[in-house]
């Protein structure tokens, strides 16, 4: 792979990581990860539990800063700007530009409306009440949830089904118009139909966002992503077009993992 520095990456590259390492106390959990994420593409991160997928995902929007014993080194860029270091992007602004959806749907115990309006409110992203209504409506529409909840916007966000809650969290994430959306096993708590709806949503969101998704489901990675990176013991073993990874991976470890030959 050609050496790419922060200022010479390809035009459609949205984010890069270079030699990203993470320590939890003395334990080295990520051993130097180099990856690129392209605009309007879904990149899937796969690998056995504990290999560092979530740790890496958190590096992309500085969520590891909130974990006391975590130390991050290396470079991460967003549109060629460094996100760590003295000239790094302000973390609050960064987390607005790089949103996150978690494994378990975690709506706030507030109304559906307030859940989605939360980000725009704290970041002051709206002109007036009408504008906020519009932002909330658009986000719910994009999340494919509008028709299911439009008559109950002032009911509790925790009162809808798990699949709807997860799409609500996605609506909440996109309400602040992020550029990148990180998803950590967003479907692991959902049934197959709710999962299919979220996958369909991911495919639609790709038009406007760059998406990085951690998934335990091989089939999900194959279905939703264009690129796949395989992590093992804190390292990226192989990254490539999803089709190539699932038909002809070049590394034995990748093949063993995706075919279920761990043993």
């Amino acid at each position: 792979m050609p050496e790419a520095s922060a200022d010479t990456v390809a035009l459609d590259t949205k984010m890069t990581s270079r030699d990203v390492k993470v320590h939890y106390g003395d334990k080295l959990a990520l051993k130097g990860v180099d990856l690129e994420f392209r605009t309007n593409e879904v990149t899937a991160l796969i690998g056995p539990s504990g290999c560092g997928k979530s740790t890496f995902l958190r590096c992309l929007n500085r969520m590891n800063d909130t974990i006391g014993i975590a130390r991050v080194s290396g470079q991460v860029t967003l549109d060629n700007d460094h996100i760590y270091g003295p000239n790094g992007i302000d973390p609050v602004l960064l987390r607005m530009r790089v949103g996150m959806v978690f494994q378990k749907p975690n709506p706030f115990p507030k109304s559906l409306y307030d859940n989605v309006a939360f980000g725009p409110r704290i970041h002051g992203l709206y002109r007036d009440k009408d504008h906020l209504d519009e932002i909330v409506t658009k986000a719910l529409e994009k999340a494919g949830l509008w028709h299911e909840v439009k008559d109950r916007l002032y009911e509790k966000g925790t009162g809808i089904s798990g699949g709807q809650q997860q799409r609500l969290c996605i609506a909440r994430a996109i309400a602040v118009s992020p550029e990148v959306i990180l998803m950590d096993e967003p479907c692991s708590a959902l049934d197959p139909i709710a999962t299919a709806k979220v996958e369909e949503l991911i495919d639609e969101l790709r038009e406007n966002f760059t998406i990085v998704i951690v998934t335990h489901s091989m089939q999900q990675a194959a279905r939703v992503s264009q690129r796949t990176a395989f992590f093992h013991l804190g390292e990226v073993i192989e990254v490539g077009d999803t089709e190539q990874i699932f038909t002809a991976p070049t590394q034995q470890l990748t093949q063993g993992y995706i075919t279920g030959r761990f043993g």
Partner: protein
Amino acid sequence: MPTIGEQHIVKSYDDEMKRLHDALARMAGLAEAQLAASIEALEKRDSDIATQVMNSDYKVDECEHFINEQTVRLLALRAPVADDLRLVISALKAAGDIERIADHAANAAKRSLVLNQMPTVAPMRSLVRMGKLVAELLNEVLDAFLAHDAERALAVRSRDQEVDDLYSSLFREILTYMMEDPRTITACSHLMFIAKNIERVGDHATNIAEMTYFISTGRALNDQRPKRDTSAFEGAVTP
């Protein structure tokens, strides 16, 4: 953390893949035997052997049927990927080729019954030589396929040229023979069809060689194997 092994974590998956491989091996063995027997029937003018070949074709069909079902089951229930996927897809395709190979052997046997009612014609010797070459290449290709040995399969594939050359010269030989002695036209026509059957077996063997390459590398062979069978132009006016 678990390590990566040779076997699937789900043992029944391994069992099903093995069942597919065993069925392919059995089918390959049957087709090889059918082709060898049909050539022996030609060479020895042995109608009993020819009849037996014709009556055994159903066994190959049964194998294909089983392999088709097994691949559909594996695709539906296991959603295979990577090398597993390539093996399953190749099994399905190879079974189709092997079934056609056995059909060609049965067709050759059927015509040999008719030939046995007529006096021997000289081009039969060349036909048998070509048949033996194809049978040898087929055995080699099927062994390589079952062992996933791309190198060996490609070596055989490059020899399909010899078959095409033999076929072209046999075609001319048969034509010449018919022109010299029109009483042999009936026998020679049957011979011509048998030669075509055998030449087609060579083509199917080539397909299987290419599949072997796909299994091991994940890539399709995209170089065009040069075709030098010139019989299609025979009799055309050349400037």
